[in-house]
């Protein structure tokens, strides 16, 4: 039995099957991401005043990645337009850029994740004095990078110290703390720029808690990794679908061009949705 409206539009709705399908799917995706966004809102407005982290994500990298994703979205529609005009070669080139951008986005995100896994907060039993250039600060909570036996370890936590029998480690402290306002952080970073870092030796016996910037660090990183990893998974799957249609699936262009164009359009709709989610994720996570 032939399935109707696979490539031709149904006369009363004016839609072919896959178009209805993708929009229903995107509707469910709106609710999925919406639920996580609402979790974010709850966590954020429910946090004690002044405790929600600021300034821990790299804004220039985030901005660049936003531009990468926007570019990949425009190449999708340009590729589809080229295909509509019968220019298969141009379509191939545009979608190659799309796939390259998708991989670029994931590569940059991986780099960002890795940077977080090696960035730490240490809570101390007693405040200590730390020097940033000329400024001396006494504090019991420090952010920074750990150096131990010449290496920069990832994923350390409080228990790691005891398990690996670490008696002390070097911490290169950051000149700010995430509970400060964005304005204060910007000021502190500017003050400390170019001035020598003074690493501090931290004794394990003085450590109340140690955590890398992983989901267990705080609800902020919990929701950050949940949202961005789910989004990253969408980028990956979207790229795989587009690459399949672009590569092995392209045989259909010869046998059933209309249906092929529909596939390109539907995969494009999904891709734009992924871009759309990022348009909200970027300011919410990086800037606010």
């Amino acid at each position, binding site marked *: 039995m032939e399935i109707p409206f696979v490539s031709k539009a149904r006369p009363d709705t004016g839609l072919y099957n896959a178009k209805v399908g993708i929009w229903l799917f995107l509707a469910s995706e709106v609710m999925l991401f*919406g639920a996580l966004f609402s979790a974010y809102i709850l966590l954020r407005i429910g946090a004690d005043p002044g405790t929600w982290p600021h300034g821990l994500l790299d804004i220039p990298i985030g901005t660049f990645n936003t531009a990468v994703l*926007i570019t990949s979205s425009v190449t999708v529609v340009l590729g589809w337009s080229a295909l*509509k005009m019968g220019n298969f070669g141009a379509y191939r080139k545009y979608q190659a850029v799309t796939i390259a951008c998708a991989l670029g986005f994931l590569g940059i995100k991986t780099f960002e994740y890795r940077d977080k896994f090696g960035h730490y907060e240490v809570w101390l039993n007693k405040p200590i004095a730390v020097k940033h250039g000329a*400024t001396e600060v*006494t*504090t019991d909570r420090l952010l920074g990078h750990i150096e131990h036996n010449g290496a920069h370890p990832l994923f350390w936590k409080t228990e790691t110290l005891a398990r690996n029998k670490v008696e002390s480690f070097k911490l290169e402290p950051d000149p700010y703390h995430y509970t400060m306002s964005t304005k204060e952080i910007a000021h502190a970073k500017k003050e400390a720029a170019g001035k020598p870092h003074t690493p501090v030796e931290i004794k394990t016996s003085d450590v109340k808690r140690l955590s890398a910037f992983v989901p267990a660090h705080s609800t902020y990183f919990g929701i950050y990794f949940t949202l961005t990893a789910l989004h990253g998974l969408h980028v990956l799957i979207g790229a795989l679908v587009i690459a399949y249609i672009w590569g092995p699936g392209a045989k259909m262009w010869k046998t059933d061009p209309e249906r092929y164009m529909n596939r390109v359009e539907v995969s*494009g709709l999904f891709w734009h949705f992924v871009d759309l989610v990022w348009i909200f994720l*970027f300011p*919410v996570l990086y800037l606010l």
Partner: protein
Amino acid sequence: MSDAHSHADIKKHVRIYIAVFVALLVGTIITVWLNYFHFDSVVVTVSIALFVATIKAALVAGFFMHLISEKKAIYAMLAVTVFFFAAMMYLTIWARDQVPRGSEYTGDKYVPYPAAKGGSY
């Protein structure tokens, strides 16, 4: 809609796509640039960021996803989605409003950072 597209139509669309692309890049730059002003009011900061993001999202949905000229059936589906999405967001914020703010609930005293005396960042 696809069958009715002539080459001239598509070329016109391509120009629109490029314009939208430029607008999205400009929107991104504006968002980041405004962020460097560090407005004292949280409401102002959040409103501006979400306002620009909403415009960008509308551009993507309207032009890249062709929602500006879609079929009625799609609009009907999305109307239901918008309703339930709004309801979920409203419920979240409404529920939050029922709970005492900050540390009132636990009775713990909030200690601002840095907890220790002797200097601040």
